[in-house]
């Protein structure tokens, strides 16, 4: 979770990701951020997020994104 929050902070230094933000609903992440995140997650976690998982539900919060990484890592 901490690594994920630090990646997000690099993308948006103005947002405090320790708070429970709704990343898509609040307009914090756009499609460009999502693709950059996918690339960073591939680098740091060794997890490739496929296109069909790029959904608003999976990127709704730091928690849902973390759950997605865990799920993909287990598979």
């Amino acid at each position, binding site marked *: 979770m901490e690594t994920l929050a630090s990646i997000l902070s690099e993308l948006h230094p103005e947002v405090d990701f320790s708070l429970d933000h709704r990343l898509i609903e609040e307009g914090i992440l756009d499609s*460009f951020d999502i*693709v*950059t995140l*996918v*690339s960073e997650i591939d680098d740091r976690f060794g997890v490739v997020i*496929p*296109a*069909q998982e*790029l959904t608003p539900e999976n990127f709704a919060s730091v928690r849902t994104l973390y759950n997605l990484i865990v799920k993909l890592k287990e598979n």
Partner: protein
Amino acid sequence: MGFTTVKFALFFLALLIVYYRLPGKGQRAVLLAGSWCFALADGWRSLLMLLTTTVTAWAAGYVMGENQSCLGGKKARAANRPWMAGWTILNLTVLVLWKLCQSETASRALAGGDMAFLTRGLPLGISFYTLQAMSYVLDVYQGKVEPEKNFLKLALFTGFFPQLVQGPISRYGQLGNQFGERRDYEKKQVSFGMQRMLWGSFKKLVIADRMAVAVTALKDPQYTGGAFFLLTLFYAVQIYADFTGGIDMALGAAQAFGVTLPENFIHPFFSKNIAEYWRRWHATLGGWMKEYVFYPVSVSAPVRRLSKAARKKWPGFGKRLPVYGATLVTWLATGLWHGVTPNFVVWGMLNCLVIVISQELTPLYRKFHSRFRWKEKGWYGGFEMVRMFLLMNLIRACDLFPNVGEYFRRLGSLFTGFSLSDFACLDQLGLTALDYGILLAGVAVMAAVSLVQVKQGSIREKLWRRPVLRLALGFGLFLTVLLMGWYGVGYEAGDFIYNQF
């Protein structure tokens, strides 16, 4: 059969009466029969192409569904891949070939022969329902939606008549299930639908078609400098009123039948940056491109490999490479979807260029705004909106010039030959002082309605509680359309700009 014709009004009312009067479960069949008649009214080519896309999409979905239940998991995916890829390649090829046949070269080559019918315009709605059906096939392949076994439901998803003229582009998950149950007559729904159709016809007939006269005149090569600035401004008004008017009529017609189509415009001229603008303008095409082109390209294996290699040399730029690569492909596809002529490719690339430059300048913006706190001031938001409006007007004007060289010549003249005296051309454009007055008032009404909707929500909902005012406004709007609509000699009712794409 255009939305703004008497023929359409009669067709719509007759279908609506039969739809709600019919007992039992026949509503879906009536709606489908009506939709196919609507397509047939455009010619047999339109109905035949719609049926081909629908039948092949249904068959591909059916086979993929059978594979999913018999094989399951990765085996089903492997077995379904050829069906998904085959359907996509076949339908995209057909769409591109139809578009190519509309070029002057193809028209000359095929003129007088057996294949000349291919050059007489695109089949109705082909650019829209091809993308819509493709999203269904791809969603079934990815397991996002269940394959539809009921052919009537899928046929209504691809062929529901309000969306055939110029979209919006719906997804099966949004629309398919709305054709499942019987709908009883609800006065409020039908009334809201008709109000929206009337509002759409006001935008189209009073504003867009009147403005089209000035836009056509301003395309003449003599109009450069300040006159070109007027052209970009007038075209912005024309295409906004034309496209949103058509979408209002489509969404209103659907609502009268109890069906909710997705919104395609979310007050785009209030956007403060280009990314926001494209989330608000033709939102269903943007959403489609994001999901089925931008994301798949940006996370594809070749792009990831390229990005990793680039990061070793240029760490910062390498990180952004997948985003920029996918943006380039997405805008190329968006440009080609509008038309396979060079100006649409250039239009797409100009949008791509502005997006990439905005991204690259983001750190600079952040530094600037941390030093000067202008963003917190009220006027700065207005400045950003005007800046975006003017920039998008310049790029959008590329639509008007199939000869790209001519577009750049006019664009250049803005900087080399601008003079306020160029505005004197206003009295040579085929419009009278009264026409300009009507246009100004029309634009003011559109802007006021947008502002009220943003600040206070649905106007129709507020008026519902005030029946006398509602009736008076409705009657006033109807009279305005009747008396001030543009019905000149040679007027071809129902020609929406986005109908040609």
